[in-house]
C-alpha cells in the first residue's frame, strides 16, 4: 500500500512536469448552469440551498468557534453547571429550521412538477443502455444507431497502452456517433436497458434517469434556441467492468440542420441495411 503510494507520487512528478497540455481542472468547482430552462432552475435551487447551508453554517460554526475560544479552562472559564435545559431556546431552534425547510420545499416541489411534465413533446428518442454503450432510436423516423466510446480512447485506456491519455481530446467523453438533437424543441427520451441497469446523464441538460431492463423511463429537455453545441456526459449507474467507459455525447443543432440530418440518415439507413437490423453508424452524424 505504501509502495503504491510512492509509485503514485512518482507518477505525480511525471504528470506535473510536462504540465503544458490538457486543460486545467482547478476552476471546476460548481454545478453547471446548463443549457435548458430546467437546468437553470435546478442550478438556482442548488445555489439557494447551498447559501442557506452557508448561512446556517456561519451561525452554528460561529457560536461553536466563539465557545471554543471563550470558554476554555486555561482562560479561567468556569462552567455554568445549572445550564441544562431551556424550553424557550429549544422551541426556537426547532421552529426556525422547520420554517427554512418549508421555504426550501416549495420551490423544489415547483421545479419537480415541471420536470415531470412530459406532455406536448415534439420528438421522441428511445435510449437503450447495454454493456457497454448506448443505442439511440428516433422512434418516429426510423433512424437507429449505436453510440460507443471512440476507438482511439478505447485503445488508449487499456492498461499499459503507453498512450498519454491527457493528449487525447475529450478522453472518455467522446463517442463514434453522438446523439443529434434539435434546439428549441421539447425532446422526450424513453430510457431502458437490455442487460443491467445503466443511467443516462448529461449535466448540461440536467436530466438523469436509470435505464432499467423491463422498464421504460421517460424524461425530457428543451435546449435553448441559442445554445447549439456539444454536451457530454456518461453512464452514472455502475454497470459492470466497463462502466467508466460508456460516454454520452449529444450534439444540439438548429431545427433545420436536424431535419436535414434526419432525412439523409433515414434514407442512408434504409438503403444500407435490412429493415430489422439497426443500421451501421451513420457517418453523417458527425457532419453537424
Amino acid at each position, binding site marked *: 500500500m505504501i509502495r503504491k503510494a510512492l509509485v503514485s507520487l512518482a507518477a505525480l512528478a511525471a504528470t506535473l512536469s510536462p504540465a503544458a497540455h490538457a486543460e486545467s481542472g482547478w476552476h471546476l468547482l*460548481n454545478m453547471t448552469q446548463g443549457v435548458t430552462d430546467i437546468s437553470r432552475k*435546478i442550478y438556482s*435551487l442548488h445555489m439557494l440551498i447551498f447559501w442557506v447551508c452557508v448561512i446556517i453554517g456561519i451561525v452554528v460554526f460561529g457560536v461553536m468557534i466563539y465557545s471554543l475560544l471563550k470558554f476554555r*479552562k486555561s482562560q479561567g472559564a468556569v462552567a455554568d453547571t445549572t445550564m441544562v435545559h431551556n424550553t424557550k431556546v429549544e422551541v426556537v431552534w*426547532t421552529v426556525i429550521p422547520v420554517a427554512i425547510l418549508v421555504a426550501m*420545499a416549495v420551490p423544489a416541489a415547483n421545479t419537480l412538477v415541471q420536470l415531470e411534465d412530459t406532455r406536448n413533446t415534439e420528438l421522441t428518442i428511445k435510449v437503450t443502455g447495454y454493456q457497454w454503450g448506448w443505442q439511440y432510436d428516433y422512434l418516429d423516423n426510423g433512424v437507429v444507431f449505436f453510440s460507443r466510446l471512440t476507438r482511439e480512447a478505447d485503445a488508449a485506456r487499456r492498461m499499459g497502452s503507453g498512450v498519454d491519455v491527457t493528449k487525447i481530446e475529450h478522453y472518455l467523453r467522446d463517442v463514434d456517433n453522438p446523439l443529434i438533437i434539435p434546439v428549441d424543441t421539447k425532446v422526450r427520451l424513453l430510457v431502458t436497458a437490455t442487460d443491467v441497469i445503466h443511467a443516462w446523464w448529461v449535466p448540461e441538460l440536467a436530466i438523469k434517469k436509470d435505464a432499467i431492463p423491463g422498464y421504460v423511463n421517460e424524461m425530457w429537455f428543451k435546449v435553448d434556441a441559442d445554445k447549439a453545441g456539444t454536451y457530454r456526459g456518461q453512464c452514472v449507474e455502475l454497470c459492470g467492468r466497463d462502466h467508466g467507459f460508456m460516454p454520452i455525447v449529444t450534439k444540439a443543432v438548429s431545427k433545420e440542420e436536424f431535419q436535414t440530418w434526419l432525412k439523409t440518415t433515414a434514407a442512408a439507413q434504409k438503403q444500407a441495411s435490412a429493415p430489422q437490423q439497426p443500421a451501421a453508424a451513420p457517418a453523417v452524424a458527425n457532419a453537424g
Partner: protein
Amino acid sequence: MAYDSHAATHGHDAHDDHKPHGWRRWVFATNHKDIGTMYLIFSGLMFFIGGAMAMVIRAELFKPGLQFVDPQFFNSMTTMHALFMIFGAVMPAWTGLANWQIPLQVGAPDMALPRLNNFSFWILPFAFTILLSTIFVPGGGPAGGWTLYPPLVLQTSEAFPMVIFAIHLMGASSILGAINVIVTIMNMRAPGMTLLRMPLFVWSWLITAYLLIAVMPVLAGAVTMLLTDHFFGTTFFTAAGGGDPVMFQHIFWFFGHPEVYILILPAFGIVSEIIPAFARKPIFGYEAMVYAIASIAFLSFIVWAHHMFTVGMPLAGQLFFMLSTMLIAIPTGVKVFNWTATMWKSSMTFEPPMLFALSFLFLFTIGGFSGLMLAIVPADFQYHDTYFVVAHFHYVLVPGAIFSIMAGVYYWLPKWTSKMYDLKLATIHFWLSTIFVNVLFFPQHFLGLAGMPRRIPDYATQFTDWNMVSSIGAFGFGLSQLLFPYIIWKCVKSGVPAPSRAWEGAHGLEWELPSPLPYHTWEEPPAMDVIAKGAAH
C-alpha cells in the same frame, strides 16, 4: 469442576480474577470485557484491510488512464471497501464499545447473554474470511457495488454464493449482538438506574439495537431472493420472468437507510458523553437528545427511496420522500444545537477524545448540509451517483462514525487499561487525521458537481487536478491511521498508571469503578448515591 471448588473454598469474591488462560480465554470468552476487546481489535483489523482497498482505489484514481488495476478489480475494491468498512469496521466497533461500556455504565456485572455474545463475535472472523477470499476465486470478488443491485450482481461469478453467505453471517452476528444489548439494558440495569438516567451512549445503543433487529432480516430476505434468482430459477428481480429489479432497491434501502443510522446513532451517544466531560458541564437538553435519537430512528424507516430518485418514481412518491428526508434535519439540528449549547458557558480542555469529538461536530455538520442539499429532488438529479454523494457519505461516516469511535477509544482507554496513553502523540494523530480527511474528501464535492460519476476507475482529464489532491489526502490519511494502533499498543505496554477517574470532568458509573478494573465488575449493584453521582447529566 476445579473452578467451582476453588471459588467455594475462597468465598465468592475470590474468583474475581479467575479466568481461562491462553487461547481458551479468547475462544471461550464470555466476559464482556474480553469480548469487547476482541470486537475492537477485529474492527481495527478490518479498518486497515478496508483502508488498504481505499488506497488501491485512490492510487488508481491519482491520474487518468489505467495504471495499476483492471476495471473489474477496481469495481471489486469499491464494493469490498464498503462491505469491510460498514460491516467489518464500524458495526463491530460499536458492538465492541457496547460490550465494554454498557455493563459498566448501567451497573451490570456482564452482558445478559454471555455465550450468545461469544457466538456473535466468533461468527465475524469466518464471515470476513469468506468475503475476503472471494478476491482469489475465479472471476474475482463481488464487483456490483455494496448495494448488490440486480441484474448486475447476478453476473458475479464463483464469488456470488460466498458473498451472500458472508452477508447472512454478518447479519446474524449483528442481530445476536443487538438482542444482547436490548436484554442487558432492559433487564440488568442497577436498581435506581431508570431509563431516563441512562448515559446517552446507552440510549443511542438501545435505539440502534432495535433498528438492527428491524432491518437486518430485511437484508437477509433480499439477499436470499438474489440467491434463489441465481441458483433456483426464481425471477424476483428479473423483468424477463415477471420480476422487478427496482423492487430489490426498495427492499435494500428499506434496510439500507436505517443501516446508515445504525452506523451513526452510537456516534451521537459517544459525542454526548465526551463533550460534557471535557466541557465540565452536564449535557444540555438530555431528554431532547433522547427524543431526537428516537425520532431520527423512526424517520429512518420512511425515507429509503431518497437513495433512488432516478429509478423513475411517481411525482407523489418523489415529493413524499423529499419531505420526509428534509424532516430528518430537525432532530439532527436539535442534537447539533444541544452539543453547541453544552459548550456554551463551559470550561473546556482539549484532550484527544474532545478533539476528535469536536472534529466530529464540525465535519458531521458539513456532511449534514450536503445531505440536506441531496434531499432536494431536482438538484439530486444532478448530484445522484456522482462524487458529491461520495463526499457526503464519507463526511458523515469518516469524521462522523470513525472519528467518534476513535474519540470513544481515547476516552475509555485509560479505564480499560488503567494506563494513560501518549496524549501528545494522540493529539498529532488527531491533527493529521482532521487535516487529511478534509484534503481527501472536500475536493470530491467539486468533482461531483463538475460531473464525475462514482465507481469509475478512469476519468475525463478535466477531473485530474482535484483527484490528485484527493488521493494525496487519502495517502496522508491512511498513513496517519497507523499511529492509532501504535498509540494503543504503547499504552498497553508502557503507559503510565491512570487514576480511576481518568478525566477531571468525566461522569458516569464506569468512572466510579477502581482502576485497574477487576475482571468482573458491579457484581454488587452500585449504591443509589453512586448512581446519582454518576448520572449527573
